[in-house]
């Protein structure tokens, strides 16, 4: 299928459908969103969108960054992301054997790209933006994107909700060094907690550092060396 964006009637229809799903989890997806020309407009007839079943947020982010690399201001185009969400709806909100879909919050399907505290909750735009912020070396953001599409870990939620932290290369690399296990290719046990050494504590400590230091100028090692002892269980030092 060619890359497209929903028109206003398509946005309304999609939104109505999400409303229907709230009361009837078996409500059938309105395929006309992707077939009726009154609901969408093609963006680029050269660009084919492929029906992948992404295993992880990383997979989705990598594919979408390639797909959208030639689209101007793609990250701000809400109608484009709504169309992509509709296209991948069976992946993003799969039906179980009984045909029931478990709907998440509306922000998971309708993006809020201008809201820096909530943008990451969109199941496609969130991973795309995080990956895009680290295009020079995306692997540094793997701790934030290693889970299946519908799982937003605390590592991601804590870092991505701060525009200053998620764009900071040293901070994101620090999070990956602390919380990602390259052997298991997922986050380390305990990385989802709220206690000492947790991502929540990391953000709290970094916010304190930010009062005094220019964190964008710091290196990953400098930040690591500044962390209190509570982080040693993740740093291995």
């Amino acid at each position, binding site marked *: 299928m060619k890359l497209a964006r929903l028109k206003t009637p398509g946005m309304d229809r999609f939104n109505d459908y999400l409303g229907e799903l709230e009361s009837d989890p078996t409500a059938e997806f309105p395929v006309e969103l992707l077939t009726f020309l009154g609901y969408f407009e093609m963006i680029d007839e050269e660009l084919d969108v492929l029906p992948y079943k992404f295993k992880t947020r990383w997979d989705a982010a990598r594919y979408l960054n390639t797909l959208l690399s030639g689209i101007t201001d793609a990250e701000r185009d809400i109608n484009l992301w709504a169309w992509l969400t509709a296209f991948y709806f069976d992946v993003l909100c799969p039906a179980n054997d009984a045909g029931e879909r478990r709907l998440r919050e509306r922000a998971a399907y309708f993006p809020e*790209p201008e*809201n820096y505290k909530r943008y990451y909750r969109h199941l496609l735009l969130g991973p795309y933006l995080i990956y895009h912020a680290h295009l020079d070396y995306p692997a540094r953001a793997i701790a934030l994107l290693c889970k299946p599409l519908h799982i937003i870990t605390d590592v991601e939620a804590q870092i991505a909700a701060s525009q200053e932290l998620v764009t900071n290369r040293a901070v994101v690399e620090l999070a990956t060094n602390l919380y990602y296990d390259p052997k298991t290719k997922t986050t380390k046990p305990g990385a989802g907690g709220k206690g000492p050494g947790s991502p929540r504590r990391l953000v709290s400590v970094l916010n304190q550092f930010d009062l005094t230091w220019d964190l964008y100028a*710091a290196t990953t090692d400098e930040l690591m060396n500044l962390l209190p002892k509570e982080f040693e269980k993740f740093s291995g030092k």
Partner: protein
Amino acid sequence: MIRRINYTNRIRIRRKDILIKLREQTDGNWFDADLSKLSDYDLPPESLVFLEAYRQTNWMRFGYGHVGAPAPEKDLLLKQFDSPEGILFRVKVTALGDAHKLIAEADAIPLLMLGQEKIEKDPLLSVKFSHELGDEIYRIDFADDRPLLLINCEIENYRQIAHSRIFLSLVYPAVLREILTHIIFVDRLHGEDDIEHWHYRWVRFVKQFSGVGELPKNEDADEQTDWIQKAVAAFAKKQKTRDKFVESWRNEL
């Protein structure tokens, strides 16, 4: 870096003292910055200046010389951004010789578009239409670091809701109460000394119309709650919310 936390020494640079203008060229969007007013602040002339452009998760950093002689260290092409709309800037001044120590900062400086000469003032309370409110008619959202009034746009003629007398009379006093409660009891009023911070602007707004005086300096919750109550009562009186409500109510009967 030395592990030390400093809450007091950083200088807050006013946004209006920094002018950053868009310059369109055939190869893309550039910017020019006027940092001449940095000399009005008590900053060591040798301290380093950096500009950071950002929008969502796009971010670029530009070295800008020293406070005594601010000048770009490289070209000022905004190549990470497809378009200039919505780009904001930070200005950071860091100490020379004390690695990465931040001594002054300004944030959320808008990029002035072509023909725009000064920074427009943000409204005290912005309104946004939302699909996410379910059966709620309105909600105050603090996710964006300042209050936003969300209106449920899945209601017929939703754009008129915020102007209706019933809404003005019932909701706005509640909105004021919620915002002041958030400032005092959730955020603990941390922006009081920053005249561009939304806390400061709301407290100033309340003091101007209500005559309630200064916010209680102590942490006495009863005194703080009284202060909020007086402010809301004064607001309701000034806005004649009872008259507005009664008029609407008569039409309902």
